[in-house]
């Protein structure tokens, strides 16, 4: 029985050591000397051999479970520290958002078609059949006057921070829904884009009809370019997920989802940043007293910057994972 006691002690020791190192994280592992590390790996391999043997020779359930548990700790310790580069994992750098948007052009085009298509259609519809406005518009917009100093142009400067943060969180919530509802094969995303597009188009059409359009555009323009673009791209993120469900290709749908999930998330995260920018403009610039031409200028500059970013950023090919030195697998960052 001496052997057995040794064995038990060895397992227990390895488990405790693994737990300590796991708590210490990457730094604890890096402090180990080469010999210590090699010893640790030896112990792990002895352990999983024991596990395999225990399982195949039919040891008691709890013994196998415990060995399995220790093996999981060892596995997480040794492999968890190695940066595992998933094939589709994007590097979330500054240019990756642009790269992802370019990669999924079809989704962006589809989303833009649905969103701006709905806006345009409802705009035209309200022009042709003004009575539609009563069905499409929310009540508070019917008598709404964008030029009235009480509502849009003069959010009191004291309230601007609150208004701005409300707008930001509300818009981000909309894009998160557009993104997540992509999992309904895109149906939820489409409904959301249609609703928002129709709302935008019918309000614009109604104001045009009543001659209030100049004031409306004046208010929308500074932040609108960024905000509408972001909503459109969030729809694209939803459609990227939907693509994995509708057309998974050669793999299972769950696998296809896993493969494209990272791309969709990258686009969604980019949209959130855009909406923070848009919300700050909407809360602080749009209600300020700047004149009409400056408002056009803000729109032009913001759209110009986005065009430059989306068409220009990250055109150089990324350094692929294979070309990076693989010599120090344990010193790399982030277990991902």
């Amino acid at each position: 029985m001496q052997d057995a006691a040794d064995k038990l002690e060895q397992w227990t020791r390895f488990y405790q050591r693994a737990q300590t190192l796991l708590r210490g994280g990457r730094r604890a592992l890096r402090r180990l000397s080469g010999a210590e590390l090699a010893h640790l790996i030896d112990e792990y391999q002895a352990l999983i051999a024991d596990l395999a043997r225990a399982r195949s020779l039919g040891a008691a359930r709890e013994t196998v479970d415990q060995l399995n548990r220790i093996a999981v700790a060892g596995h997480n310790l040794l492999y968890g520290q190695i940066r595992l580069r998933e094939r589709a994992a994007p590097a979330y750098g500054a240019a990756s958002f642009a790269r992802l948007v370019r990669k999924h052009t079809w989704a962006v085009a589809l989303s833009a078609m649905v969103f701006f298509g709905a806006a345009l259609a409802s705009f035209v519809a309200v022009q042709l059949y003004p009575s539609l406005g009563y069905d499409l518009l929310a009540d508070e917009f019917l008598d709404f006057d964008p030029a009235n100093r009480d509502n849009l142009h003069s959010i009191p400067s004291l309230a601007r921070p609150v208004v701005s943060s409300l707008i930001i969180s509300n818009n981000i919530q909309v894009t998160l829904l557009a993104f997540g509802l992509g999992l309904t094969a895109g149906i939820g995303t489409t409904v959301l884009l249609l609703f928002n597009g129709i709302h935008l188009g019918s309000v614009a059409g109604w104001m045009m009809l009543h001659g209030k359009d100049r004031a409306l555009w004046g208010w929308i323009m500074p932040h609108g370019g960024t905000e509408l673009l972001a909503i459109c791209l969030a729809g694209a993120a939803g459609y990227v997920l939907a693509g994995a469900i509708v057309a998974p290709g050669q793999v299972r749908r769950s696998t296809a989802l896993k493969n494209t999930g990272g791309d969709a998330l990258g686009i969604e995260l980019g949209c959130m940043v855009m909406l923070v920018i848009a919300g700050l403009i909407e809360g602080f610039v749009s209600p300020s007293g700047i004149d009409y031409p400056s408002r056009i200028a803000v729109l032009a500059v913001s759209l110009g910057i986005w065009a430059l970013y989306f068409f220009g950023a990250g055109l150089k090919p990324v350094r692929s994972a294979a070309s990076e030195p693989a010599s120090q697998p344990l010193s790399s960052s982030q277990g991902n």
Partner: protein
Amino acid sequence: MEERVHIATPDHVSLEFELAGPGSRFSAYVIDFIVNVLLVIAIVLTAYLTGALAALRSLASISAGASASWLWALVVLIIFLINWGYYVFFEGVGKGSTPGKKRMGIRVIRQDGLPIGLREAALRNLVRAADMLPPPSYILGGLVMHFDPHGRRLGDMVAGTYVVVEKFDLAAQGASGAAWAKRVEQGRSRQALTLPRGAISAQQIGLIEQFLARSHELPKERRRQLIWQITEPLLPLLEEDRDSLERSAERTERCERLLLQILDLAQQKTASVAIAPKAPQPSSLF
């Protein structure tokens, strides 16, 4: 939905995890929901009290209004962050466990068995809206979980994660473990075995050991074929009757017993031990 999931490691050993059922996952959700609500209440209360205090101190000061506005702007953002970021934060930082999950003894892992990071946590939780359909019933997510063999909701599929049960206490390692440890220790050495009718080389013994260690992962029919291929050439050495064994209904079981016997013999290091007429019955442990 199955009870367990096997994860193949680079070492060709499969690690086993027990999948968390809908019951414990829902309970964890309820706990997290309550914690979430309490957090929001605490923050609004704190902001309200600080705001009131600030107003009291700087009565009639102009800056009071402005700072209150910034304070409430901050509160709005923090509440939004809590609502959407609660799970992302706790799962991303806490290796897949939220307070509710910790209480229920479950945790989220990646499909390769590693703990999840922020990326997986963000993916599986930011798409929650779809699982919640029609809100807030979680009917869609529940249906997907029910039909998926690994009990994943849609968010788990997107992120590539499983929710597993975290249990076991190493202190509970009992006497059975000790007895088993002995057996495993003995199985370690490999040396040639010389029998009266011939020798079995160290490589052959190594092969037997490897086969036994992996055979549970093979499909039944394949296992039956392989074990026969391995055992058949050894039968003359063991003085077993090949034909009767081949026709035997429990051929695989008997072959396995013979292979185990060879490993036992190889362990005893004495060269020419006669084969016991009857295979030793496995003890109650095995």
